[in-house]
């Protein structure tokens, strides 16, 4: 294969199977699309997308693609496809697969791409906790979707970050603070109204920053926070919301202080790249803070996300927001971040560094029992014990 | 005397969507100010013809002239606008509305969005009722009113619309003699006011009494029109059926046997908790027809329901063949030898959306005869049974698997009678067995009841048709407000005396 010969002809194809959330889930499906479309463009590949109507479609969709024997790699998005990928990968040993969030350690033709959401969430927790402490508040919130174990990692990381923030604040200022985490599983990823009501209740109960881990439901969280700002005649927080999965800040600038990014796009892109370059290897690829697989969004991240939107959409969105140019948006985002003192951002960075070096470990509970223990823990050190 | 036709229908043909040719070119002339009788067997096409005149159905071909002018009605409102009103065979009342709202529906006055002017409508209605000399309660949901009252509401509905021509499709089928008399008085009064009336009935004596002329239809064709003064019931019956009909029932004298049904001090409550039956006692013997006469709504329905297990009595005893059966379920009662021809054929006796076969074994489904294994139904045997019934009772039906609603009313009733008799009962409870049934079928059913009696069965007959009770019964009880005013032999009392008892005077008091 000699690259760069026929520009007009695609050099192959890749396929992606979304889970039931599909495009527009504001979560890993959207991010996977981002990575896959970028890879398709960069490597001049045809991209075939399959949506799944229900969980029953996974095997069918994967099998349909595999039987066509024309894809460099088939990307399966979401942990729910784990068993389906295992089965189809056995049936088609020559077909390469990559699965996002699914744990398949022992197949040569399957690359499992996992993320340490707990680490990223710890930064979100630290950010939230410090903002609250700094403003003399004692509560932060987290609104989650359906209660499923994957979300425990987010909750645990967030709790860890908040506890760490308490400690950090005390050391920095000498003042004791105690910050409660108001948490709530809304039972759905699909109902923005429900997210709004949940956030409203948390705000009423004193939450100063709310982290949303709830897909479409989370959109309501942004709206609730923005309403509270409006009622106080403010354009920017606090109170703030924290976005999840992608750099969501652009959705409601001023309301969202930052987002916990889970770079599914990077994972997907890497898998395709490996497949194209012939370096594809089966097994586990785990992406954490160290690998930039998760993290707190920077303004540049947000702008990159924004730039990935179609031109028209960008223009319209800028107009809707009342900006004349992208620069104005960028400035506005920076201004939003400036509402939070720099030392807080540095502190978050500090925590990031410690997690990367491994001096601090964030718990990642996998089941109910595990999360209960994290919830019961009094200090971040106690939680760290659980991580071991 | 030169008479002007107010309505002329010419060459009316009606083919229903399912291909039934209901009318095959009917001509009908109605003169202003007359009462025209329309006669014909069940399914002859009377209702169809009238629905066409009222704009509810569109003729397949044919012309209609009103006061000499050709009209084409799109809907009943066009007919009403031309002064034609119709009271339907099956009442078309909104059951949950009260009389007032049923009557003013579609003519509420003012705009659609203004408040309904109840007072003005009430005023107009009060005056109408005064003129006609009858009363209906205007503010009670009509479902709580007796049928006689419901019918008055239907008539008021049309008069409220100032119609000149009033079509009445079998108005007397559900009325008691007293109510019929009142109705006739009203109709005569309307005629005197210059209104024209088309009157459909299966009861020849009524037609004889009321009408000026009679048009007879058979199988979608006009057989002829006669002046009532020149007609006899026999003549009309022959025109309708095409053969001679025995209008008097032959009933040989018979000595009754053992008591089959015994009722002892029975008390039954009505739907609204009132004492509908207040301490009735009587017996029906083998080989006897015991009739119950009375104005409808005097507890007959509740009594029958209590006897047939559809309603739990308050107190008292019911014995069948000497065995207490009070409070038993209908199924147990059938098994004990009771059969029931219910008064409400379309709502109780049949399930209109089921087939003839399914209806023919309704209530018989547990019989061994229809089961190959316990709990299952062998439809082939059920069909056999149905074919037998159809043959034996001369039921006209398109087939055993046809929906029963495609049978005419008379044939539906025959099917019920056939089914109930096929239970081989010792007691038959027959409630309004010939209501709305044409002369030929009426003749058949009445003769059959007499036949059963002659075979030694006990028959309990409830009918609003006083003639029927008088003709068929060996003994009869006259019921008033849930009590018998007297139990008499029909031949021993006069019609006047019966009428007095129906009005609430005890037999002993009359005899004094």
């Amino acid at each position, binding site marked *: 294969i000699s690259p760069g010969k026929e520009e007009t002809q695609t050099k192959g194809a890749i396929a992606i199977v979304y889970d039931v959330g599909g495009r527009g889930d504001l979560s890993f499906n*959207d991010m996977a699309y981002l990575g896959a479309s970028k890879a398709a463009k960069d490597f001049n590949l045809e991209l075939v997308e399959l949506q799944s109507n229900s969980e029953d479609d996974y095997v069918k969709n994967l099998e349909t693609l595999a039987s066509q024997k024309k894809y460099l790699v088939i990307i399966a998005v979401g942990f729910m496809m784990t068993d389906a990928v295992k089965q189809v990968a056995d049936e088609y040993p020559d077909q390469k697969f990559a699965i996002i969030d699914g744990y398949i350690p022992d197949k040569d033709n399957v690359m499992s791409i996992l993320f340490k959401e707990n680490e990223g969430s710890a930064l979100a927790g630290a950010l939230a906790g410090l903002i609250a402490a700094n403003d003399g508040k004692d509560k932060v919130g987290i609104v989650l979707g359906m209660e499923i174990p994957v979300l425990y990692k987010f909750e645990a990381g967030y709790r860890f970050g908040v506890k760490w923030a308490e400690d950090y604040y005390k050391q920095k200022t000498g003042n004791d603070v105690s910050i409660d985490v108001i948490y709530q599983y809304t*039972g759905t990823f699909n109902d*923005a109204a429900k997210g709004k009501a949940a956030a409203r209740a948390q705000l*009423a109960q004193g939450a100063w920053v709310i982290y949303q881990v709830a897909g479409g439901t989370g959109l309501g969280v942004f709206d609730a926070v923005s309403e509270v700002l409006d009622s106080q005649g403010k354009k920017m927080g606090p109170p703030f919301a924290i976005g999840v999965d992608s750099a969501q800040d652009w959705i409601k600038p001023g309301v969202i202080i930052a987002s916990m990014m889970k770079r599914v796009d990077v994972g997907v892109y890497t898998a395709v790249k490996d497949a194209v370059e012939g370096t594809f290897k089966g097994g586990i690829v785990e992406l954490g803070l160290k690998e930039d697989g998760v993290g707190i969004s920077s303004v540049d991240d947000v702008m990159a996300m924004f730039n990935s939107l179609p031109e028209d959409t960008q223009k*319209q969105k800028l107009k809707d927001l009342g900006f004349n140019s992208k620069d104005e948006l960028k400035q506005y985002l920076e201004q939003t971040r400036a509402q939070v003192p720099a030392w807080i951002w540095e502190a978050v960075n500090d925590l990031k560094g410690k997690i990367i070096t491994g001096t601090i470990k964030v718990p990642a509970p996998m089941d109910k029992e595990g999360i209960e223990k994290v919830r019961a823990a009094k200090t971040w050190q106690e939680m760290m014990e659980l991580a071991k | 005397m030169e008479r002007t036709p107010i309505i002329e229908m010419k060459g009316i043909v009606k083919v229903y969507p399912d291909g039934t040719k209901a009318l095959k070119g009917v001509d009908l002339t109605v003169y202003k100010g007359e009462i025209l009788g329309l006669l014909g067997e069940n399914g002859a096409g009377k209702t169809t013809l009238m629905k066409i005149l009222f704009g509810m*159905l569109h003729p397949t071909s044919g012309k209609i002239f009103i006061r000499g002018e050709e009209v084409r009605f799109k809907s009943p409102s*066009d007919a009403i606008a031309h002064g034609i009103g119709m009271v339907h065979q099956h009442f078309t009342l909104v059951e949950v509305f009260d009389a007032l709202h049923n009557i003013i*529906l579609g003519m509420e006055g003012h705009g659609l*969005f203004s408040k309904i002017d109840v007072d003005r409508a009430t005023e107009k209605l009060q005056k109408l009722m005064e003129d006609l000399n009858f009363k209906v309660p205007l503010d009670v949901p009509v479902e709580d009113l007796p049928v006689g009252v419901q019918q008055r509401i239907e008539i008021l509905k049309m008069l409220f619309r100032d119609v000149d021509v009033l079509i009445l499709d079998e108005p007397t089928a559900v009325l008691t003699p007293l109510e019929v008399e009142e109705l006739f008085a009203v109709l005569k009064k309307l005629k005197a006011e210059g209104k024209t009336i088309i009157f459909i009935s299966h009861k020849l004596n009524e037609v004889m009494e009321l009408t000026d002329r009679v048009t007879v239809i058979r199988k979608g064709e006009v057989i002829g029109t006669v002046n009532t003064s020149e007609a006899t019931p026999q003549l009309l019956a022959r025109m309708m059926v095409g053969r001679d009909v025995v209008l008097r029932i032959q009933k040989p004298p018979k000595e009754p046997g053992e008591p089959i049904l015994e009722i002892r001090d029975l008390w039954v409550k009505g739907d609204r908790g009132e004492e509908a039956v207040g301490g009735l006692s009587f017996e029906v013997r083998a080989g006897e027809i015991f009739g119950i006469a009375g104005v409808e709504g005097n507890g007959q329905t509740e009594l029958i329901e209590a006897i047939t297990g559809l309603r739990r009595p308050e107190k008292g005893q019911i014995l069948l063949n000497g065995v207490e059966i009070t409070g038993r379920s209908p199924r147990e009662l059938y098994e004990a030898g009771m059969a029931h021809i219910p008064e409400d054929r379309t709502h109780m006796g049949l399930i209109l959306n089921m087939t003839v076969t399914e209806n023919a074994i309704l209530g018989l489904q547990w019989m061994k005869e229809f089961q190959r294994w316990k709990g299952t139904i062998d439809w082939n045997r059920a069909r056999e049974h149905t074919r037998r019934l159809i043959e034996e009772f001369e039921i006209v039906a398109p087939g055993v698997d046809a929906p029963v609603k495609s049978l005419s009313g008379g044939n539906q009733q025959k099917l019920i009678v056939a089914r109930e008799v096929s239970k081989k009962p010792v007691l038959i409870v027959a409630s309004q067995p010939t209501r709305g049934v044409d002369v030929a079928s009426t003749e058949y059913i009445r003769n059959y009841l007499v036949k059963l009696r002659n075979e030694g069965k006990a028959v309990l007959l409830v009918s609003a048709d006083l003639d029927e009770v008088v003709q068929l019964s060996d003994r009869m009880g006259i019921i008033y407000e849930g009590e018998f005013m007297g139990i008499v032999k029909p031949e021993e009392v006069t019609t006047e005396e019966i009428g007095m008892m129906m009005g609430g005077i005890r037999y002993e008091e009359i005899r004094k």
Partner: protein
Amino acid sequence: MNVGDVLTILFTSLMAMVPIVLTSVGAAWSERAGVVSIGYEGVLLMSAFFGAIFAELAHNAIVGLVGGIVVGVLLGMLHGALTVYLKGDHVIPGIGINLLALGVVPFGILAYWGTAGQHQLPDDAQMWHIRTPYGELSPMVFVTIAIAIVTWWVLFKTPLGLRVRSVGENPEAADALGINVEKYRFWSTVYGHALAGLGGAFMSVDWLGLVHKTMSGGRGFIALANMVFSGWNPLVSLIGGWLFGFFDALATWLAPKHIIPGQFILMLPYIMTIIIVAGIIGKARPPKWDGRPYKRE
């Protein structure tokens, strides 16, 4: 719980009741005329989507609400044509409309705005709200209350309502009095769907200020239950819809207390509904010809 909490729950429930009440009131009217529809879920979703487009094009939320009504009217006409004029089954089209919405809206969001799954409405396309520290109140709350009351009044006090109820109870009787059964049924269906359309647009241009591909969240079905709960009475629908919103808001408020597992808290509004119906309301009688096509011949 202090006054602020009570107000938060109150405001949340008042806003939450709007789409449910509007849909219930519309459905009650439609079923009073004898036409059943289970497609309100789809109507809510599609009118939320198209209503937002209207609002943005006009830079005016009220136009968006009207746009929602228009979408409701069109879908109501479709349903009316199928059930009233073509005498089709009343339930099937609703299933089809719900499916349609699940295709049209996600596809439409991406096609029209270029963002997948969601879109935020600009300020000038959003409804003005009464703002308090405890929550916001839309004028639509009052409009909804007014609509429920007026609909009730028209249904039970005016000639129009009398006719509508008559075609749902006994179309034969109405027909015999020259009332055009099909016309009344058709337009009643349209009205029912139009109110649902208004409710859907409310969700996007007013309540939440956003469009999301599954934002109807089962409210169409809850509204149907509420309609039955109300005994097909718009006024009771108003109370029922608010009660449901109240228990939902209360549950949401209680959830972070974690007294019992979250899933059990989430059941609260549904359990309360059953208890109220079983304990207090009991038997509800639908209009007699509800869901049955009327054919003259």
